[in-house]
């Protein structure tokens, strides 16, 4: 019964989304307030209907209703509660339903909260969002229905892939989809602006909070995914330049560019066409990502729930949506009025440079990701593009962007004073260079690239701090004045500082971890040990333990430094009978910013012939920063967002006050 309710709600949501398009479009064309309101109501109702469908699928998973094919394929009665819930979005059908839920949710949010938007623009945006909803809901309802029944009903389900049974990965898809689909709002606003033929500061002020929200969620989602890859896959790596990873990274890069260009459009009315273009591109890249991940056209180590035939439908949706968006852009954008003029040395110019670097970096990632497809289509040869390509192309472009980054916020709008900026950043630059030189000279083994990376990371962190110091006049004004200024800084400024700081922290972590990580692996009998990164590890014992839905071997490895024990690592090797799959449960020993990473491998005989276990250990210096950095960036986005909300409220109140004053007059 529950599944039928879900299937019905899904089709109902499709009908409501179609009504949303028709009513909003009619309301826009006729200029009718009731029709517009009805369209907004339909947007809210469509969200509620998808919510009911999503709830129905969740209930089916919670009650292990194996008569539903999707539940039977992805769940198991023994599975812990968290992963029963996570199983809802662990499959192709379920993840598409989550996508639809997020899409209609954002649509409803625009429809019900966008009071300060111009009426025509809002109606067009709601209609566009509804059209996106129609496409994806139709796909879900007709080609990818999660509520199909099975007959005969199996006694037991096939369980969720054990690698996905992990807290970080259970939360990863909702965050990632929040980001991916959050860009749909920006897309709809861009299409609406193109239809209305007008882009102004108010439009940009609306685009920014949505971009910030989507980008922050995407940042957190990617960080969760990287953290999962880091400790669940047991390879000690966190980023492989795999197509599936790139698929999520490209919308992130475009979103970052959009965040910055929208500032210029909002504050100075310039870069209008470019901002609209990026707004269209961000969601197009999100859909490209969904297509690449779901269709399996590119070989990836992270491919789950792959289905080539339905991947083609996603490609068709991508073609229709992005195609019509960009066609509209080509038709209407040339008519946009060029915005404010700025000098070559100015805040605007620095943001343009930032956008150029981000766009070029996105293009190189796109080329590296799609090149195997293009070559195969052209010559039939099968290739893969490895990390070396991305290290050679992406890294230098981002390094160049990082070098100019701290100068940007210190430059004035319109015409900046380069000499003054250089003076203010001398200390930061000096310290960063000193950090790089000292790293190169003192840290063994000597790594030139690692040292450069440390220098860049330090430059970003110090540059972000220098900007706050400058704004608050630390060291030049009295303490009370400094405090007053710090308190007076808008949240948006703090958000920016946090974001840039997070980038610096990430660069530091990534470069130190990549440059100086150590690895050691040995077959150990109980009582024997190995050494890595200055720590001595001893395998105390290993034995069998039972989990809720798996059998495991757990080792107890004591870690000591200079003779004193610092922690006990308990890595596991789990066997899941439901899928016949083995996974490694890594033990992490937090040592300040660094990790000691211990993996229990298979049972093997040692060189001396004793029974033993393969134990692999990594020393990952500053690995903590790799995940802390993105979290800081996401937090920065949220802090900025709280500021925007406030300002939107102020703008609306001001508008209301002036309207009241007019009415009184």
């Amino acid at each position: 019964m529950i599944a039928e309710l879900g299937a019905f709600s899904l089709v109902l949501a499709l009908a409501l989304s179609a009504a949303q398009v028709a009513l909003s479009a009619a309301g826009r064309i006729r200029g009718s307030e009731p029709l517009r309101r009805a369209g907004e109501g339909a947007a809210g109702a469509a969200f509620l209907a998808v919510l009911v469908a999503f709830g129905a699928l969740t209930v089916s998973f919670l009650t292990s209703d194996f008569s539903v094919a999707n539940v039977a394929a992805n769940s198991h009665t023994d599975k812990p509660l968290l992963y029963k819930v996570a199983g809802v979005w662990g499959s192709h059908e379920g993840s598409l339903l989550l996508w639809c839920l997020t899409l209609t949710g954002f649509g409803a949010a625009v429809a019900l909260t966008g009071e300060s938007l111009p009426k025509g623009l809002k109606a067009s945006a709601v209609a566009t969002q509804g059209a996106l909803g129609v496409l994806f809901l139709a796909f879900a309802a007709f080609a990818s229905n999660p509520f199909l029944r099975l007959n005969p009903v199996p006694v037991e389900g096939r369980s969720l892939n054990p690698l996905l049974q992990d807290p970080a990965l259970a939360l990863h898809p909702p965050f990632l989809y929040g980001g991916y689909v959050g860009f749909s709002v920006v897309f709809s606003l861009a299409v609406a602006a193109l239809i209305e033929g007008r882009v102004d500061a108010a439009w940009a002020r609306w685009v920014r909070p949505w971009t910030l929200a989507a980008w922050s969620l995407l940042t957190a989602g990617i960080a969760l995914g990287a953290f999962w890859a880091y400790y669940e896959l047991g390879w000690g790596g966190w980023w492989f330049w795999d197509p599936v990873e790139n698929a999520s990274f490209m919308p992130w890069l475009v979103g970052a560019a959009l965040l910055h260009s929208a500032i210029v459009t909002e504050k100075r009315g310039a870069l209008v066409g470019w901002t609209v273009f990026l707004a269209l591109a961000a969601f197009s890249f999100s859909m490209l990502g969904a297509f690449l991940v779901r269709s399996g056209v590119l070989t990836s180590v992270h491919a789950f729930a792959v289905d080539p035939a339905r991947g083609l439908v996603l490609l068709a949706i991508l073609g229709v949506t992005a195609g019509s968006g960009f066609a509209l852009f080509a038709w209407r954008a040339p008519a946009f009025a060029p915005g404010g003029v700025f000098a070559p040395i100015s805040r605007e110019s620095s943001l343009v440079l930032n956008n150029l670097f981000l766009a070029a970096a996105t293009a190189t990632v796109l080329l590296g990701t799609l090149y195997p497809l293009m070559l195969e289509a052209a010559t039939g040869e099968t290739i893969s593009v490895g990390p070396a390509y991305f290290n050679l192309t992406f890294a230098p472009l981002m390094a160049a962007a990082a070098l100019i980054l701290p100068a940007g916020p210190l430059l004035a709008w319109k015409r900046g004073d380069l000499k003054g900026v250089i003076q203010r950043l001398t200390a930061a630059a000096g310290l960063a260079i000193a950090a790089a030189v000292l790293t190169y000279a003192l840290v063994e083994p000597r790594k030139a690239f690692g040292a450069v990376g440390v220098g860049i990371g330090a430059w970003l962190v110090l540059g972000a701090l220098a900007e706050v110091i400058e704004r608050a006049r630390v060291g030049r004004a009295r303490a009370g004045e400094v405090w007053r200024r710090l308190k007076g800084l808008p949240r948006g400024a703090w958000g920016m500082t946090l974001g840039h700081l997070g980038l610096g922290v990430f660069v530091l972590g990534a470069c130190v971890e990549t440059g100086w990580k150590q690895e050691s692996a040995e077959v150990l009998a109980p009582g024997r040990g190995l050494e890595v990164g200055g720590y001595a590890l001893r395998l105390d014992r290993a034995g069998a333990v039972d989990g809720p839905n798996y059998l495991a071997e757990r080792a107890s490895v004591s870690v000591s430094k200079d003779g004193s024990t610092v922690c006990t690592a308990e890595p596991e090797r789990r066997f899941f009978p439901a899928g016949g799959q083995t996974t490694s449960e890594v033990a992490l020993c937090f040592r300040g910013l660094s990790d000691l990473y211990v993996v229990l491998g298979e049972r093997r005989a040692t060189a001396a012939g004793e029974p033993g276990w393969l134990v692999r250990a990594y020393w990952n210096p500053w690995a903590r920063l790799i995940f802390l950095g993105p979290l800081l960036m996401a937090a920065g986005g949220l802090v900025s967002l709280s500021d925007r909300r406030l300002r939107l409220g102020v703008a609306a109140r001001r508008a209301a006050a002036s309207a009241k004053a007019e009415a009184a007059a």
Partner: protein
Amino acid sequence: MGFLPKSRTARRRLTIVAVAAPILAAAVGLSLWAMRDAVVFFYGPSQAQAAQIPPGRTVRIGGLVETGSVAKNPDGSVAFTVTDNTASTRILYRGDLPDLFREGQGIVAQGAFDRSGGFEAKQVLAKHDETYMPREVADALKASGEWRGEDGKTANAPDGAAAAR
């Protein structure tokens, strides 16, 4: 400078082009240069035999791990055979195999042939999803006429036997 356009908008456009062009050129140049070294070709065992790959060049070999072929050497290395059921390649790998490495499973090994014709892998990739076959492996099997379909690939409609496992 008389050759610069007089209109302010045109000058501005020229400045943007002057800044953008070197960055884009650098990006394109870097991409082409990096693409030469970073591209790794993929072969099935029979294609690898036919292609006469020079020793030392990094390539990927993909196929099914032949049942009964996995030998664990005392020095910690592992030797196994991947096959597309027409030809096979013996692979030596020093390191810990991924959890999903099993006999009969499709895998991809990245490494190089040595002078004696053996393949030494630097990296062995098995997929996270037990029902997922790397597309190259599937294509290589199709090319050698050994394609038998992927078991349980349509995750949406499990047959009774698989579901009741």
